[in-house]
């Protein structure tokens, strides 16, 4: 049983990280990537995680998004202690609660734009018609309704990232995580992608956690956290 103050902390924050530890084995050597990380993020916040390469920011993002598991600590996301979930439940949890945006878009090349956006909805048991409607809505939101039947190879980098953003929001997740979303884009496309994320945060109240090297990108976020050598800078 949790006491009332803990319960209230859980309800206030969409992300609650306490004393998080993560290390990887490289051969016989154990590399400590994150140590003693404490972090809280409220619903509707736009948070940027910054830091030099190897500082552990992508690892922290992966842990929060439930695509990797910490060694120790506490990790509550969207009201769920995700460390306690088994692989199958964790996959279901991700499908429901988290939207993902990656640096290299990571669209499936054999699917068209709209099919890529529809992909997460296949796990929802919706009819084909409903899936199409939801996907079109998401693509409309990112301003890409004219290229829905194009394959990723037929789209520019900026357009592909917009499809990826549409895929991230199509299930209406509690949390959107973005790993260097502008890292592979030209200036104009990067600015458009950031504007889109800002719009999702401000107009739709989406909580966004973004890993970035780019100070200009970080400016869009209301809160910036710095990591260095696996620790959060105070």
């Amino acid at each position, binding site marked *: 049983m949790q006491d009332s103050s803990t319960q209230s902390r859980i309800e206030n924050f969409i992300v609650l990280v306490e004393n998080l530890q993560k290390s990887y084995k490289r051969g016989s050597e154990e590399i400590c990537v994150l140590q003693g990380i404490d972090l809280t993020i409220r619903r509707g916040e736009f948070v940027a995680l910054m830091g030099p390469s190897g500082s552990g920011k992508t690892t922290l993002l*992966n842990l929060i998004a439930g*695509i990797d598991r910490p060694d120790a600590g506490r990790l509550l996301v969207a009201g769920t202690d995700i460390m306690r979930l088994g*692989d199958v439940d964790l*996959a279901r949890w991700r*499908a429901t609660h988290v939207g993902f945006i990656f640096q290299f878009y990571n669209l*499936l090349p*054999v*699917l068209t734009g709209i099919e890529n956006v529809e*992909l997460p909805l296949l*796990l929802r048991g919706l009819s084909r018609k409903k899936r199409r409607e939801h996907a079109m809505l998401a693509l409309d939101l990112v301003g890409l309704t004219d290229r829905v039947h194009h394959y990723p190879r037929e789209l520019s980098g900026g357009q592909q990232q917009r499809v990826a953003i549409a895929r991230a929001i199509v299930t209406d997740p509690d949390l959107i995580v973005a790993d260097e979303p502008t890292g592979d884009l030209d200036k104009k496309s990067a600015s458009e992608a950031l504007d889109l994320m800002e719009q999702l945060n401000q107009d739709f109240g989406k909580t966004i956690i973004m890993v970035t090297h780019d100070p200009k990108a970080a400016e869009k976020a209301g809160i910036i956290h710095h990591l260095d050598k696996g620790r959060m800078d105070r």
Partner: protein
Amino acid sequence: MELLKLILRNTLRQRLRAILTILGMAVAILAFCLLRTVVDAWYGGVAAASPNRLVTRNAVSLIFPMPISYRQKILRVPDVAQVAYANWFGGVYIDERHFFARMAIGPKNFFDLFPEFLISPDQLRAFWSQRNACVAGRKLIDQYGWKLGDTITMTGNIYPGEWQFVLRGIYRGANKNTDETQFFFRWDYLDEVLKKSVAYESGQAGWYIVQVKNPSLAGATSRAIDSLFENSWAETLTETEKAFQMSFVSMTEAILIAIRIVSLVVIGVILVVLANTMAMTARERMSEYAILKTLGFGNRFVFTLIAGESITIAMLGGILGMLLSLPVAQVFSKELGAILPVFEIGWQTFFMSFAISCIIGFLAALLPAWRASRVRIAEALGHIG
């Protein structure tokens, strides 16, 4: 439905690789079909054997004949309905490469014992009314372009001399597995010539064909026939036609085993080739599998995706191989007609080929699919960029 779409699109993604693998699979299945059919064809005589026919031969060896008088004695055995006889003629037609079975047969009821040889009554009458007449199977007629009334000359090797036969009948097979490459002429013609040239060889039959009324008593009937000739100078060995045919096949058992092993080796080789292709494919797409898992798709979905692609490639190759085997088998049938008279790919072989294709597809996907389903998402995404 969406999964199927994804599998099909993934299959055709690396076109050249997919086509080459499908062709490889097709060639393997083609080879498997042909090799299996060679084995089946080898057993063709066994398969075509009738349960109500027994064969009585000299107990020492088939090459030793028996007196023609045995027929009357065998006819008196209870449960025996009819008895006919035959001699292996051998001989050479054109040259030794043109091989087909040539036999002297008698008496007039011979074809009554073989209802699977369909011959018109007119032609049968013509055959029995001319001493040097002959009857040939449809496939021989097609192969050599013979017509009724043609004179066919052969050089004897077991029975020396130039032998001339007049074609008076053509038989067709009642069943698919009936041998249509045999050549029959009259035993009394052979006997007449032998009486003039090598008299001590006349009046003898190579083997007797015994039709029984009740196939379930074949064992007892066989023993009864053989007991008639115990302690004679030509003791007999009577067995079912199937066992008689089997004795020829068992002489070449080692070859058949070798053919079976080769057919399995071919399957093994293509399994390794397809497994390698799938391992390469899965390795290249590891980041995509990671994305699917990130989006919430489970390990089973990823496993099905890879296994489905592998099975699709294997099945397409298998079906292509089976389709190709039909015309190739026809060519084989034409070329090997005399040695393997019934060379037709059976449904059992097709069914087995299809099942093997599916199993190969599944087995080839096992390791890469297992690896992809076990890979950690963060690790696989780390490969990106």
